[in-house]
């Protein structure tokens, strides 16, 4: 930012300096408010539970959660659960990305197949995918395979439909151009559709990583002995609220990191 400004005018004018000063002041004040509110929230929570205004059995408290976190860090238990959830999510995310790009390209290449399969895709996409999880458990049993399939099933149909619809939106005149230059469907696909849809594929990935996480957590609720989803269900069943809230907090951080990573890649590539 600063470099760009300097390029245009070597010495920033007094007004420009004033603008920058105000800009940074505003930014810092927002940061300060955020930290303050967060700390105040934690303090209030801790205080209310310390003075027994709220029942710490139901609401736990920040200190309890922190101490549990450090305990679980010490015996590496928390990392095992995080690692399992992450592995499952990544595997289903890669499968979804690969599958949906391949299927969307195939549908574009064979329009007749797309027409035949359209109702099936629409029905599968509008189905609440968590309804499929019990079926997958019956077929595949409990375990990592089931959970990965659950993660895939949540994201894959919508992803295919999104990509295929995006492919179809590429301007007809640009396709005509490729054909008038002597190209075939393959050239249309690889010289036009795929490169011009890279932003679409990336934004699709951004949605998919979140959906895969949802699918994996649903899977872990129903069919796991490890993972953050399992910890949440386990914590609620034995009323260990610090475990439950800790798991949810870690999930929040993971989801946010996923999103930020893909956003960073997006900015790098585009």
């Amino acid at each position, binding site marked *: 930012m600063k470099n760009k400004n300097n390029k245009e005018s070597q010495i920033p004018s007094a007004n420009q300096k004033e603008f920058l000063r105000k800009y940074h002041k505003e930014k810092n004040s927002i940061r300060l408010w955020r930290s303050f509110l967060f700390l105040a929230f934690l303090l209030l929570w801790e205080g209310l539970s310390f003075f027994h205004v709220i029942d710490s059995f139901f609401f736990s408290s920040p200190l309890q959660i922190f101490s549990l976190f450090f305990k679980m860090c010490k015996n590496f238990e928390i990392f095992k659960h995080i690692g399992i959830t992450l592995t499952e999510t990544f595997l289903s995310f890669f499968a979804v990305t690969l599958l949906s790009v391949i299927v969307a390209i195939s549908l574009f290449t064979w329009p007749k197949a797309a027409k035949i399969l359209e109702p099936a895709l629409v029905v599968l996409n509008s189905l609440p995918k968590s309804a499929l999880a019990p079926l997958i458990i019956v077929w595949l049993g409990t375990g990592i395979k089931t959970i990965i399939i659950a993660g895939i099933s949540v994201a894959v149909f919508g992803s295919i439909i999104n990509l295929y619809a995006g492919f179809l939106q590429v301007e007809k005149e640009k396709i*005509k151009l490729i054909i008038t*230059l002597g*190209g075939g469907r393959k050239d249309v696909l690889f010289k036009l559709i795929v490169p*011009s849809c890279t932003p679409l594929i990336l934004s699709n990935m951004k949605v998919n990583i979140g959906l895969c996480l949802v699918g994996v957590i649903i899977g872990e609720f129903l069919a796991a002995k490890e993972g953050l989803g399992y910890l949440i269900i386990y914590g609620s069943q034995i009323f260990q609220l610090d475990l439950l809230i800790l798991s949810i907090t870690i999930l929040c951080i993971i989801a946010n990191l996923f999103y930020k990573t893909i956003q960073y890649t997006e900015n790098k590539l585009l």
Partner: protein
Amino acid sequence: MTIQVSHTEPPILQLHQVSFSYHTLQGETPVLHQVSFEIQQGEFISVIGPSGAGKSTLLNLLAGLIPVEEGKILFLGKDLYLQKKEGPSFPLGYMLQQDQLFEFRTIWQNVILGLEINKKLTSDNISYVNSLLKKYNLYEFKDKKPSQLSGGMRQRAALIRTLALRPKILLLDEPFSALDYQTRLEVSGDIAKIIKENNITAILVTHNLSEAIGLSDRVLVLSPRPATIIKQLPIHLTLPSDNLLSYRLAPEFNTYFNELWEDLNHEKQK
């Protein structure tokens, strides 16, 4: 703007009684009805007609994008559509209404798109494209993105992309219609000059009468749908200067203009 054409030579392109209809569930729409004409090597002809008369259909047929229903289109005596199906060395280049440059490619990558598709990126062809870029003042911009160029430059780049494949005949589908008036004058002059210099046979489809008269050796007038050719008007202008844009000052210009204007209006009232 006379061109010495020895009419003993066989025509480069012949249309024999070409008819074409569009078919939908609602029924049949005849678009072209027994259209016949011939073009000699090096000739520049324009096709004018009321909008919706089937000019675009005619171009799509000539570009080999759709097969003729009745009649024949022959390039140097051989069926044109079969040649398109047979292979990459199609003799007709097509310039679309908009430049259709791909924003994810640089100007250089755009102008060699046709060569890339046809796997003709030989050093010979590359130096030919480089010479075209230099000649038409685009060489310094070859690493720029299309959005960094003016409308006129983009249109010239689009023309070079078509010329790179060394077409025998150039089809121009109102390639100036997307430009503002001033750029339009400049670019149509430029492009006409490039076509003359490279001795390319050209077919321009337009609804701009002045452009048709100023740029071509012969103007074909289409009737409203189903279109037939109602007039072929040879144009001989005595240009007051070398500048191709001076055609409006030629003494014959108004006579031609009025004649074509009357033909079009007469047909409309029928």
